[in-house]
């Protein structure tokens, strides 16, 4: 069948993408608005970005968010990959059903519930809430996403490669490290990035599980946003959009480059 977009499909695509991007574009445009009021266009200005540098609490919160995200993403990637390996390569082991249920449930569980329950856990065992409780919470939330992504990659993976490695004398751990992992690396990297974004982004769980001294960027933004629109917020948000946008595009270019160099994207 000819691969041609019908008019309807083309319209749907364009409308959909416009819907997705327009608010962000507007946000970015307004971050350059010299006037404080949204209603009035005061000309182009980067003055709000300059103000940001002086906003120490905001910068501190950003730094906290980045650190939490980096640690939680790494821990989540390790745990999630282990879980994915267990689910795809270990057949029907005892406890598999309950294990799988616990992996898939957090994907859909409303965040207020997971946040609340973890807070109550920390209180019950008398752990002070702060940076590390937040890291634990984000790790738990993100590992399930990692598992789903890595699992779908592992299921596709050609098992005969692992068998060949074992046949040639590599025990299971060595097989995983020398053969499987290098070939599923794009999926693992993608899930790290997803975990990072989820952590950076999260408001609800962070509100429940963090403590004094570990205020995250979303929490700060939220408290300001409740009071209404402000151009500094516009600037912060546009910056974050820019950073993330660049990172994602760079990552996908890197993946394409890796594919072009010879390691096939699909095994």
């Amino acid at each position, binding site marked *: 069948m000819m691969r041609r977009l019908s008019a309807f499909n083309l319209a749907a695509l364009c409308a959909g993408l416009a819907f997705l991007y327009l608010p962000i574009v*507007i946000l970015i445009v307004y971050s350059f608005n010299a006037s404080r009021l*949204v209603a009035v266009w005061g000309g182009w200005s980067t003055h709000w970005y300059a103000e940001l540098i002086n906003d120490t609490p905001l910068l501190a919160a950003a730094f906290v968010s980045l650190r939490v995200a980096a640690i939680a993403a790494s821990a989540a990637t390790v745990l999630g990959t282990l879980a994915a390996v267990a689910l795809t390569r270990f057949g029907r082991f005892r406890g598999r059903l309950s294990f799988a249920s616990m992996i898939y449930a957090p994907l859909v569980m409303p965040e207020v519930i997971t946040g609340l329950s973890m807070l109550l856990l920390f209180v019950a065992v008398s752990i002070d809430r702060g940076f590390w409780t937040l890291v634990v919470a984000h790790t738990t939330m993100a590992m399930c996403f990692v598992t789903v992504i890595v699992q779908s990659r592992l299921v596709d993976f050609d098992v005969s490669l692992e068998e060949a490695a074992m046949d040639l004398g590599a025990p299971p751990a060595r097989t995983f490290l020398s053969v499987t992992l290098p070939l599923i690396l794009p999926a693992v990297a993608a899930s790290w990035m997803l975990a990072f974004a989820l952590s950076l982004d999260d408001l609800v769980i962070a509100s429940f599980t963090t403590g004094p001294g570990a205020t995250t960027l979303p929490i700060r933004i939220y408290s300001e946003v409740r009071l209404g629109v402000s151009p500094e917020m516009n600037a912060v948000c546009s910056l974050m959009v820019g950073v993330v946008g660049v990172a994602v595009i760079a990552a996908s270019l890197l993946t394409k480059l890796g594919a072009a160099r010879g390691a096939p994207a699909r095994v």
Partner: protein
Amino acid sequence: MKSTQRSWLAKLVVGVPYAWLIAFFFVPFLIVVKISLSQTAIAQPPYTPVLDLSAGWGGIVGFFAGLSFDNYVFLGSDPLYVLSYGKSVEIAALSTAMLLVIGYPIAYAMTRAPRRLQPVLLLLVILPFWTAFLIRIYAWINILQHDGPLNQLLLALHLVGEPPVWLSTNTAVYIGIVYSYLPFMVLPLYATLEKLDESLLEAAADLGCPRWRAFWLVTLPLSAPGVVAGALLCFIPAVGEFVIPDLLGGSRTAMIGQTIWTEFFANKDWPTASAVAVVLVCLLVTPIVVFQHQTMRSAEQGR
């Protein structure tokens, strides 16, 4: 490797994530249930009874004696909560329906695009998802403001006489949910539609079926798993949504996520908040189990 040799390494691979999840996902739930059976107290922690193992058997007995279903009775008696649950389910269901109507054509159009373009399209759909959730909601606050661009546009086009109020309405909440959850609907749909065997449609055409009918009889039913996955992936979290109704919605009736938040942070009433949460989980148990079952099945089938 269908090895039944349970080496210590294999036990570790399963054991570590399993233990983590038990500790940080399952046990917390049990604690929520326990707290929901407790009462508020002006103390640290702000609930009673507290299990004090050092008090021995008597302490344990006293602990269980202090639990009660009072909070649940309270929930049932105050219409505020019932209304909140109702509103949450209603908004989530309606939003999910809208997401389906909007998302399906987008996903379908993506699969009909030339193969080279598809990864790009996929990236474009996912990109907004990477930018912070909060930011995207905030972007809408910008737009929906009284003197924001939307109203400016409407006034300029003479579609309305005076600028309508968008913020703090249910409509804004719907817009917010549909906007934020769209990638969650489009991606599973795209994944399912993309795997659809084109030769099925060619066979239908060969047997005399017009295109729209082939879509109705072949494509639509075969995309059902994607529809179910997408719908549940949107509906379930939407029921417990907090940020969107808090920032964009009105204060008349709160969604259940807001109710939990208020009970917890504003009223400092942890037991009631826990009871509300437990009831919410019970409400959602059926869709969650269906989702888990569906995901497990499609994961095993190699997507």
